[in-house]
């Protein structure tokens, strides 16, 4: 992406962050008019460009596609080597469906290849006598009901049927079937199977052959989603490992787990192993409900966003993650969406005793619990958002279209918003696995990471809130409301801003936050401040105005804003307290 542009944007607004948060975290701003900045259209295009590139390095294959490719490969090889299609099939399967490999080996030493694979150079006819003894049942039969492979060892129909059937029910090994005679290695191909086996076994054999084409080939894999019948043909060496199947399941080509950018495959494997090992513990710890922090009634979370409101008469509003009052998530916490933090120092005194103990405890289980809980919450939020997206597509959109007299085609922005929420929940989920494995001693990195994560979290909450709760008003309205077009502008704006932010976040984390100086992380930062300028409700507060006119780095008298991470440092500091970046002189 083009970071120059973003930096430019960022410079204009980076000192706004404090105000911005205090306003937004209240989440009570539905009535305010939004003033969105659409100055980042180019970055939108960039984002689309990236998805486009990513789709180029793989092809989704349906069963008929696979069949077609397999047939093509076989036909081509059979023409080139002038051998039968079935012999070509046996050869290809032996060399894992690599045409070039077959060519190489065959032209290097045809005799040897034939020996290894079991393709005889000189086929032998069944002995020309009237009656023959079957080598399996030892019965004597007339010659015309006996069959043999290229080696001429005769067996009767019933024994062939049984022999092939036993091998087929044993599994894909039937593709390597040889003549029953122990001293003979002649290969039994599909032609023999089709001639001699039962209908059911023929089908199974064909199935194994098709599966082999995908499973034995290095370049292809089945989509791991349950019940999905598509396969993926992947081109190596072109960037992302993420594959999105036609069944809408996304997975990582490398480890076939669900897509997990920005976390790498090793971390995912560790995390999944850890989850399965400790899941019993976790089930116990994370019972599906939490008591309302005020009235202590158990509450089950059944909506996506973290902003909870207890049922009347309590009506206490709190954050699902930290159980702190929602009002504390605004100005008074200094503008940070603090719920992604494990350290409790800053919140000391704000939480009740049990909560604090939990947050303070250093033992690993509790630390793990912290990350697991957030990982799992985002996971279930994502499931919920997927279901919401579905219900939106199937019923609500139509209803909304009626209520607000809007043609369905103009409501696509709602679907886009929900798709974005689903994707963001996925990324956010994995950032918690990332956070868990981020070394404790890398203090600056941790803080920076948590800051970015917090931004992401709050940005997504904002989008989720807007797409879920604010939309509700328009769904329930009796007549079309004129504010709807504002809502459209707001939601579309939030969607694009959040998309950009998450794209940048992923890139920043993938580079391991290695040099916080890199354009990536800077882009991420600037993007975050960008999102602030977009989502900020105009310039309501005086401070906000002052900051804007104050311009970049040295905005307020005694403070300077780090141009690497945008942290607001006191004037006395010469290096950034957040990322230890030196103040440029």
């Amino acid at each position, binding site marked *: 992406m083009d970071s120059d542009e973003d930096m430019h944007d960022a410079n204009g607004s980076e000192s706004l962050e404090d105000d911005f948060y205090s306003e937004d975290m209240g989440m009570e701003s539905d009535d305010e008019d939004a003033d969105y900045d659409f100055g980042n259209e180019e970055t939108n295009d960039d984002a689309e460009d990236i998805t486009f590139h990513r789709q180029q390095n793989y092809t989704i294959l349906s069963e008929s596609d696979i069949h077609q490719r397999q047939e093509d490969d076989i036909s081509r090889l059979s023409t080139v080597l002038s051998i039968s299609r079935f012999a070509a099939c046996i050869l290809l399967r032996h060399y894992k469906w690599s045409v070039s490999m077959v060519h190489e080996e065959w032209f290097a030493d045809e005799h040897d290849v034939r020996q290894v694979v079991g393709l005889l150079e000189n086929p032998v006819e069944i002995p020309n006598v009237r009656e023959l003894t079957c*080598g*399996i*049942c*030892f*019965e004597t039969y007339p010659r015309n009901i006996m069959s043999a492979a290229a080696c001429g060892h005769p067996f009767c129909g*019933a*024994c062939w049927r*049984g*022999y092939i*059937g*036993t091998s087929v029910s044993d599994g894909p090994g039937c593709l390597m079937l040889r003549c*029953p*005679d*122990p001293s003979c290695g002649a290969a039994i191909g599909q032609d023999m199977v089709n001639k001699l086996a039962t209908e059911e076994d023929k089908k199974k054999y064909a199935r194994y052959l098709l599966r082999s084409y995908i499973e034995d080939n290095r370049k292809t894999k089945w989509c791991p989603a349950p019940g999905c019948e598509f396969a993926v043909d992947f081109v190596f060496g072109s960037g992302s490992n993420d594959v999105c199947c036609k069944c809408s399941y996304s997975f990582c080509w490398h480890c076939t787990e669900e897509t997990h950018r920005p976390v790498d495959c090793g971390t995912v494997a560790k995390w999944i192993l850890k989850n399965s090992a400790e899941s019993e513990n976790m089930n116990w710890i994370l019972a599906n409900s939490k008591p309302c922090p005020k009235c202590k009634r158990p509450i089950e979370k059944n909506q996506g966003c973290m902003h909870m409101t207890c049922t009347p008469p309590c009506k206490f509003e709190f954050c699902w993650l930290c159980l702190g009052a929602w009002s504390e998530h605004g100005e008074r916490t200094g503008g940070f969406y603090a719920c992604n933090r494990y350290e409790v120092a800053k919140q000391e005194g704000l939480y009740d005793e049990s909560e604090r103990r939990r947050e303070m405890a250093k033992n690993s289980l509790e630390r793990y619990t912290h990350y697991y809980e957030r990982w799992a919450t985002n996971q279930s939020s994502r499931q919920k958002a997927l279901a919401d997206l579905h219900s939106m597509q199937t019923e609500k959109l139509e209803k909304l279209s009626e209520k607000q007299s809007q043609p369905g085609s103009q409501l696509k922005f709602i679907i886009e918003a929900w798709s974005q929420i689903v994707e963001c929940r996925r990324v956010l989920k994995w950032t918690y696995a990332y956070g868990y494995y981020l070394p404790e001693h890398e203090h600056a990195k941790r803080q920076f990471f948590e800051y970015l994560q917090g931004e992401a979290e709050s940005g997504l909450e904002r989008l989720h809130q807007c797409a879920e709760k604010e939309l509700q008003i328009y769904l329930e309205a009796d007549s079309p409301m004129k504010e709807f077009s504002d809502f459209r502008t707001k939601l579309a704006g939030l969607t694009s801003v959040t998309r950009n932010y998450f794209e940048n976040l992923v890139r920043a984390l993938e580079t391991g936050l290695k040099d916080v100086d890199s354009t990536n992380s800077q882009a991420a930062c600037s993007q975050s401040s960008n999102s602030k300028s977009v989502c900020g409700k105009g310039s309501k507060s005086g401070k906000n105005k002052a900051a804007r006119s104050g311009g970049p780095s040295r905005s307020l008298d005694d403070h300077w804003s780090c141009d690497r991470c945008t942290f607001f440092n006191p004037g006395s500091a010469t290096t950034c307290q957040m990322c230890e970046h030196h103040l440029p002189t």
Partner: protein
Amino acid sequence: MQASRARLFKEYKEVQREKAADPDIQLVCDDSNIFKWTALIKGPSETPYEGGVFQLVFAIPEQYPLLPPQVRFLTKIFHPNVHFKSGEICLDILKNAWSPAWTLQSVCRAIIALMAHPEPDSPLNCDSGNLLRSGDIRGYRSMARMYTRLAAMPKKG
């Protein structure tokens, strides 16, 4: 079931007819069940099993000869590929390399060959396998010889 019975009957007739063909193998079908056989095999010469007579039992599956018979030693034997307690035999043709063209007679021949040429790298009897793998041929031979005398030879006197 019917096919396997027919095939076993053929083998039975063959065994009756060729009794003298292989003096080292004596295959006997159970009086009441054609799916149960026993065999007496002679220890091959120039091995520690020479002079011994070993009893094998066959349990034959209904899908025979598409599936291999289950064979084990009834006579105790000290051999790397025979389980010391159960008598189970580790032999490829009794597992994945089985072919329906093999017969009970040829299985017996394969077992005799295995007695003469142990495969210490896939041992069922680790003590025996370890002796051979460490090159202690004498140790292996004397152990095998002792058990042959104790279990596979007529008691003196």
